[in-house]
């Protein structure tokens, strides 16, 4: 839950200024930008994501470092599962809870 997942801003949401599409190692998901409103990121910026919210801007080098840390900690798969689980888009694919794994 306290994972910090690095992602790159792909595009800002034209309809909802609070959201942006991010790329996390090839997986694209919407995240909430509300916690970065004092220094809004632009496409190309790297951010650390906590529970679906971008929390801080970081450099590309630090983003790669962070992904490596997650891999070393054995948390990379959990991080990707978390990112894939963000359900802000894809209304038609049903609710996130339907992906509940036992």
């Amino acid at each position, binding site marked *: *839950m*306290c994972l*910090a997942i690095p992602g790159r801003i792909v595009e800002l949401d034209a309809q909802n200024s*609070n959201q942006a599409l991010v790329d996390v190692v090839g997986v694209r998901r919407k995240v*909430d930008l*509300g*916690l*970065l*409103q*004092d220094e809004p990121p632009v496409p190309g910026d790297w951010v*650390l994501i*906590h*529970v*679906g*919210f971008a*929390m*801080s801007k*970081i*450099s590309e080098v*630090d983003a790669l*470092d*962070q992904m*490596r*840390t997650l*891999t*070393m*900690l*054995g*948390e990379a798969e*959990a991080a990707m*599962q*978390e*990112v894939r*689980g*963000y*359900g*802000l888009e894809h*209304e038609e694919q049903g*609710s*996130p*809870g339907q*992906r*509940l*794994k*036992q």
Partner: protein
Amino acid sequence: MKYVDEFRTPELIGKAGDEIRRLADPNRHYRIMEVCGGHTHAIYRFGLKDLLPDNVELIHGPGCPVCVLPMGRIDDGLSLAAQPNFIFAAFGDMMRVPGTHGSPLEYKARGMDVRIVYSPADALKLARNNPEKHVMFFAIGFETTAPSTALTLMRAKAEGLHNFSAFCNHVTIIPAIRAILDSPDMRLDGFVGPGHVSTVIGCRPYDWIAKDEGKPVVVSGFEPLDILQSIMMLLRQLRKGEAKVENQYKRVVPWEGNRAALRAMGEVFELRPYFEWRGLGFISQSALKIRASYAEWDSEQRFSVPGVRVTDPKAAQCGEVLKGVLKPAQCKLFGRECTPEQPVGALMVSSEGSCAAYYNYEHRKPVTIANAAAN
């Protein structure tokens, strides 16, 4: 040699270990607390304890949100969700945490509508998609996750979404550190400060630990070298007789924290007069509750909560382990009745819990960089 290749700079790790040995006064025993459960996980996973001399002891702190949550709060949340047309939504970490009559996952097996969400924003979306039901988000976490819950409630209010509420169990790290320092059976020399909590609160809130308590604090990153460097920085201060707050994790943690996140928390939350923590008991002003201006989105103000208080299973010594008084393996249930597969206590559930970390990496003792180097 399992983890050796994964280190970017194995030679630097070895050097850091040497430097720590050089800095540590052989006539002194150092007790350093890593506050954050993420650090506990990293320390076991990387076998960093094996790199430290015997007189530099790491004590595991209370920074694991599911570990410190008393069982009564889980029971309260589950009893609320037993109402008809309720959806209980929580992070995956919560799902296997035992309540008196089972974990959320076991309640799901008995028919409760329990959903894993990865973000509070997803719980809000569940509410939008299920207008005939009430979605209760079981909110846990320190200052790392509290701002996200706050923003989600702000969004719910702005949207006028009335079938959504949060059962707020957010806690704050500073009062927990104070409680630990106040406990008579705990002597500590310094703190490895939490990394991601500090992205929100910054470094200033730790000032009193240095100024009033005379203990150094180094806010740390999560890579092996980050943690070793933070221990070096602490030992340097202790050697010089200094006590100040330093930031080893500058690349992510701004000294002032994240003001937008703090504003969101201030808008939605206020301090509870007191809150119960597993192991630490009642700590005043140590948790957040939802302000009256958001009462409609607060499960506790909107519904009647039983206010259950239960003690942990008698044989389990979660509290003593949480306080750092016992090591995980000293608990009578450790590795026998209580395992990650069949957890009795919450510390065995979360990867940030010291029992799970100890069980996975120490109890089963894989080859780490430290003991590989010795072979």
